[in-house]
């Protein structure tokens, strides 16, 4: 047995993959299957699952409603479609903003003196030392009506004798967007930095030597060579933003409900695990579809060139 493992690369591979396979099978594949089964069930009046095969949860999610205002038998209720759409657009916007902010900074760090790079990377990582939820609460302290931002602007307005009513910033889509961007920025900076740092300086010189100015060098050399980092960062940011509920819960309140919040409420407040399961699976499918088309276009963040 041992001899076989020593001599067979395939056997070694199987052995190395075994713990994770075991883990994922029992804690991902089986629960996922259970979620699928439950999503086809119905909620009993006291919040239990009545197993069966019904697509009601899915039709409900896409707007079919029997609870209509004018006594109609059925009508379209856009609530859940709106939530799905909001989650999707928020994830897109967050990712785009994060790329826009992370790229210049990553570029700056990658071009900095090697001795200073580690310091800068360290600074980027410092916020991650604080708990995720606490950081979101910190934004609440900044954004709320009596928060730091309103106090400062109010004081300035007072000095200039301008009438000032505090801004309503908390519990708005903007607040959720700001919180998301803040939370996920480091996950974009690091992969982009890694791919930029790997680019040999002589490539920039070669581009200049061949007649490319700074802008063309960036577009034709720097950007394509750093795409693996952008792709990896996008995957690290887009997928969690699609599913997270803490940021929208704290900074969005009842105003900005995302799929994550919907699912959480179905399992806890509404006690309807069948509808929650259906929403979970739809979220997963949406994320998979976007990631699939994205990675098909840009690759999986691996080296562009096959070795």
């Amino acid at each position: 047995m041992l001899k076989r493992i020593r001599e067979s690369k395939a056997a070694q591979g199987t052995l190395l993959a075994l713990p994770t396979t075991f883990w994922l099978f029992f804690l991902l594949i089986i629960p996922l299957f259970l979620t699928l089964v439950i999503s086809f069930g119905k909620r009993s009046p006291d919040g239990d699952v009545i197993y069966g095969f019904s697509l009601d949860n899915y039709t409900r999610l896409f707007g079919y409603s029997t609870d209509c205002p004018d006594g109609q038998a059925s009508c379209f209720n856009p609530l859940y479609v709106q939530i799905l759409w909001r989650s999707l657009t928020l994830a897109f916007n967050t990712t785009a903003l994060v790329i826009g902010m992370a790229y210049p900074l990553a570029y700056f760090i990658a071009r900095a003196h090697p001795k200073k790079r580690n310091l800068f990377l360290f600074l980027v990582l410092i916020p991650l030392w604080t708990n995720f939820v606490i950081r979101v609460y910190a934004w609440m302290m900044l954004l709320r009506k009596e928060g730091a931002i309103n106090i400062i602007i109010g004081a300035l307005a007072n000095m200039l004798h301008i009438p000032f009513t505090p801004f309503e910033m908390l519990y708005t889509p903007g607040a959720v967007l700001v919180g998301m961007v803040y939370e996920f920025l480091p996950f974009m900076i690091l992969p982009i930095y890694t791919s930029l740092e790997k680019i040999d300086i002589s490539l920039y010189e070669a581009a200049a030597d061949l007649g490319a100015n700074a802008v063309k060098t960036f577009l034709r050399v720097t950007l394509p060579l750093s795409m693996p980092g952008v792709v990896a960062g996008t995957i690290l940011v887009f997928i969690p933003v699609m599913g997270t509920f803490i940021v929208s819960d704290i900074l969005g309140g009842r105003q900005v409900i995302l799929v994550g919040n919907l699912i959480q409420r179905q399992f806890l407040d509404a006690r309807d695990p069948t509808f929650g399961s259906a929403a979970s699976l739809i979220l997963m499918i949406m994320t998979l579809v976007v990631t699939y088309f994205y990675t098909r276009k840009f690759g999986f963040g691996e080296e562009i060139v096959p070795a």
Partner: protein
Amino acid sequence: MASEFAVEMRDVVKRFITPEGNEMAAVDHVTMQIKNGEFFSMLGSSGCGKTTSLRMVAGFEWPTEGEVFIEGKAMGHTPPFQRKVNTVFQSYALFQHLTVYQNLAFGLEMEGAKEEEIKKRVGHALEMVQLTGMDRRRPKQLSGGQQQRVALARALVKTPDVLLLDEPLGALDLKLRKEMQLELKALQQQLGITFIYVTHDQEEALTMSDRIAVMSKGKVQQMGTPVEVYERPANKFVADFIGESNFLEGKIKSLSKDEASVFVPSLNAEVVGMPISEGLVKGEEVVVSIRPEKIRITEKDAKNTNLFHARVTNTVYIGADTHVYVDVNKAKVKVLEQNRISRLDPKSFYVVGQDVWLMLMPENTLVLKKD
């Protein structure tokens, strides 16, 4: 052509700040005039300033003092993309995200060339470096030698006035390097483009160059044709760096219009009749330099001038030649003997302990200033 010189460096100095905060001149008052169509090499060990000089011509570095001229125009702070020179990098610096074709097309696209023209010129360049049919490969799918050719073609496709080559063959194995040396030289002659070639390999420089600048410590030690720098090195550094030499310290005993005699204490004798170079004075401490292959060994005393009695201390057979190490009084001298006849019979050659006579031909023996 606008100017007699393709590239001219006038009293160029480049200073860097070392990590310790000291100022250091990587290039120290260098003046070079490189003619149109010339194959010019900068030769020296690492840190001699050859690569920095090349980078100042390319525009990657700007001189601290002095001026670089290309085709008679002062370059000042002209950026690389506005200079009509192209570089073949030591690391090749190929764009890994582009195909071979796209790598070559890059520079032409920057000029705004039309697609038809790009196609034609890239095809021609690939043909020139014998890579036709490789245009769709990625650089990583090519061998080192092929990558080197892509780098060369990418620079040449731009039809520069001057091609700058920074140790382009350094990463290739010996055999391929020798092939490429001849190929590069042939290509240069065929195209008539000025080549400025940086290398630390003296044999490479001798093989290819029309002229060589031997550099050390940021300064040009000597500039001349391969024959000049080998046969008439300007100083001990050049004599030592290019080829091999025996150095014997001595003092000038007499000096005529065109000949010098030097007393060499370690020989306890005088070496006479050597051609003189400029600036030598009587009584000066000098070095007598003679190349191992230029010493003659005889077994009989021929009663000639500059004939010294010696004893063989070691012989090393290396195929084409045999190195004979001899003691002449207190001096140790290396002599290179060509194996013109078979050495299968050990008696056919010098043996350790044998008494021989060394003849230093005056015309091949040089008097060099002490550094």
